Each structure stands twice: as C-alpha cells, then as structure tokens.
C-alpha cells in the first residue's frame, strides 16, 4: 500500500487526529493527491481540522480524473454545504468532460438550500456549458436572483 492509499484509508479512521493528519498529508502532496479527490470532498463534512486541510487540498488539486464524475454527482446535493460546494467545483474544473452532470448541477442551482452551492453549481455550468432545456431554465431564473454573484454567474453560464 503506498502513502496515498494509506492516507485515503486514514480519512475514514475513527480518530479525528488521524483523519486530520491524513488530510494534511494529502494536502501537502499537492496535485499528486488527485486520485483522492472524492475522498477529500467527503472529508469536508468532518471536524474543523480535517475540513480545513481537505479544503486546502482541494484548492490545489487541479482537475480531477474523469472517472470521478459518477462519484462526485451525488455529493453535489449533500446536506453538508462544503461537500456540495467542492463537488460542484470539481465537476466545473472538468469542463466539457462533465457535461453529463448538467442536470444535477442545474438542480443544485435552483434547489440547493445553500447559496454557496447554488453559486458554485452556476459557476460549474459556465465551465461545462448549459445545453439542456431544464438547465437553461434554472439558469435563467438564477440570473434574476437577488444575489449579485449568483445572478452574474448564471448570466455568464447562459452566454
């Protein structure tokens, strides 16, 4: 078992310190941790230390593997806003490679209870491209949002 595999397993450990150290190690490994992208997104629903290192790792991770799309999609609607935020972000980084995630992201734009997830989903659709009718409708509604950022991201995604 290599370090990356061990750290990914340790993210599931019952000891929060072990999980935090694992998240930190994955963060310090930078883009070498790209295979741990989904694990790190899920670790964003954890105690503060784990969450902080997981979020920092995800910032520097770059574009995840295309085969992570199926695992990321259900996380967009997680009840933990940071999980939904990062799942949408990683799908957006995949650009056209995540075009199959349009509907899930469109639903997040219109239905997520978390503004940060709505905004990130709109941002992701701007990177992926919105072609589905229902997604375009969601973006049109969001473009009229009172949140200036959501409105601007939705408008950009529609352009």
């Amino acid at each position, binding site marked *: 078992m290599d370090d990356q595999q061990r750290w990914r397993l340790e993210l599931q450990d019952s000891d929060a310190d072990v999980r935090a150290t694992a998240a930190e190690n994955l963060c310090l490994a930078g883009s070498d941790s790209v295979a741990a992208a989904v694990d790190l997104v899920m670790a964003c629903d954890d105690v503060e230390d784990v969450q902080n290192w997981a979020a920092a790792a995800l910032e520097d991770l770059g574009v995840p593997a295309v085969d992570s799309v199926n695992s990321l999609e259900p996380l967009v609607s997680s009840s933990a806003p940071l999980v939904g935020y990062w799942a949408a972000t990683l799908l957006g980084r995949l650009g056209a490679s995540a075009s199959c995630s349009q509907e899930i992201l469109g639903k997040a734009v219109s239905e997520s209870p978390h503004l940060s997830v709505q905004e990130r989903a709109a941002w992701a659709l701007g990177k992926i491209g919105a072609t589905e009718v229902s997604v375009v409708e969601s973006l049109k509604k969001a473009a009229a949002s009172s949140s200036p*950022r959501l409105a601007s991201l939705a408008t950009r995604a529609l352009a």
Partner: protein
Amino acid sequence: MSNRNSKYGRKRRSFKMFWLIIAVLTGGGVSGLLNPDWPIVGPLVTSVKTQAIEYKNQNPLGLGSSDVSGGQANPGAYAGTPAQSVSALGPNDKILIATFNIQVFGESKLRKPDAMAVIVEVIRKFDVIAIQEVRAKADDILPRLIAELNADGSRYDFIIGPRLGRSVSKEQYAFVYDTNRIELDSASVGTIGDPGDLLHRAPFIARFRPRTTDPDRAFTFWLVDTHTDPDDVPEEVDALAQVFQVMQTARPDEDDVILLGDLNASEKQLGDIKKIPGIRWVVGGGVMTNTRQNKAYDNIIFCTPATQEFTGRWNVLNFEEEFNLSREEALRVSDHFPVWAEFDVWESPDSVH
C-alpha cells in the same frame, strides 16, 4: 521641490483636515462610514475604527476602456535584480514589507514546534508582513503567534480581519508588524466593501508608517492584503485592479497603495492590473514563489510614479534553503514562500500625487 508643495507637505496638511473630519464624524456616533466596534484589534491597539471603502461592481471609477488605454503603458515587471538575502538588511532607514501565505494557519500548525520555529524566524526578518490563510474557529491563533514572536523581547503586534469566504471554510487575513519600527494608523483599517460579490475574500486593508523621529515626513502607505480564489483568478484579478484604483483615491492624503498577497496568478496573468498606469510588480522573470518552485502566485504590486520609496530590493525568501530544510519539512511550514520588498522610511518628495 519645496516642502510646501512636496508630497509629504501636502500629506501633512490634508492629514490634519482628515483628522478634523474624523473627529467630527466619530463624535456624532456615525454609522456606516465608520464602525468602531469591529473586534479586530491586537493586544497593543486600544481602538480600531473601520473605514468602509466600497467599490462598485464592474466599474467603480467610471473608467472606460479608452481612459485606461490612454494611461501610461505597463512597463512590465520591475527590472531590479532580486537581492541575495533578506538577512543582508539595509540601514535603519529602510523597511521590509512582506507577504506570506501560511497555508492553513491554525491549531494544527501551532502544535508543530519545528514549523512554528521557522514561521517565527521568517516573520522576525520583516517589519510588516501581510498574512493569508489564517484558518481557525478559535480567536487565539494570532495572539499565540505574537507570544512566540515576542518571546525574545521583540514587540510585534497584529491586526486581523473577519472570517471570509463563500463556503463554510473561512479564512482570515492579518497584518503582523514590529511596533519598534512600524506604526499602524488605527483609524484606517478595514475590509474592502464588495457589493457585487466579485471576490471570494475581499482584501483586508490597513495604513502604516515607519516609526521615525519625524512622523510628518515618514513614508505612509496602504497595504491591501489579498488571496484570490484559484478557480476564479481572471475575474478576481480584474476586480483587484478596481480595488487598487479605489484605494489610490480612498484618501486625498495617501497615494501609496501596495497590493500584496497570494494572487494565484503569475505576472502573465495580472489582467486589468497591468492596465493601471505606472503599475509595477516585484515578482517576475521566472522567479517562483511556492515551495515546490513551480508557481509564481505571490506578489507585491504598486505604482512607481507614486511609490518612489521602493528601493529596488526585493526577493522571495526560500526558507527551505535558508533553514536547510527538506522539501517535506518546508511544506509543513507552508506551500508558499514569503515575498518581500524594501522601502525608504521617508516619504519621497518627488512622488506624484
């Protein structure tokens, strides 16, 4: 140029007028413009007032593209050669201003004595340092850093901004400064207003000056501490260009604006910042600022027609080499190296307002 017409002469007169206005405003209990209740004060600062400086979405100054292109063309990255070592400091009439992203600076880093020893030694090399990525729910992170810094008799102090970020994972900016050498203008501290929500973490601003025998002649300057969202760099860099220009006119008595931090952008990605007349940045020409030495994300940016106090000395402090660390040990400190630049302590009489 005579003192009457010099930059510091103008600053002195307008400074008095400014304080007169502030005295009137705060005496009347104004809200909105000033918010004296913001809890961002370090242990040695007794009162901090927030100056709300807002810029408007898209085009705060009413500048059109023709106005921008009509300005002085960007001269490119500062052409000076990086100084060899930050430890080879100049004479006492110079100050070192730095920026340092201390990756995920919170409880877990404070518990690592080896990493903290490096962080403390790094900060002690500078007079004022803009910090990014304080990430903690606890409020004692900076006080504990300051306690370690001052354990050798130093007199560092800090100011820290609010927790910022669109997700639930927030960050704070901070300024740490050596009170033996630097004074904070405690009435000029705040976070940039961002009504259009263009910036993931709106910059934290504060005004400083070197502690000198003649304060009226001292170099005063805004520091604008920033950390962009790596997923929104082009948009945020363009927004920072607006912030910079707003700060240039935020006070009639201050034309020295120093934007510094983790821009997640190299000199080639500075977007609208490059269109600001007279703009210069120190890091360029292939110099890297991250610990892995493959990105140039951190920089110090200012306008040379105004900020002639820049001496031309700057560098990236490679603490991996400086403290003979392994790459892994260095990464435990941070994934960024500090960037610093040197400035005169005296206001340049030839600066253009």
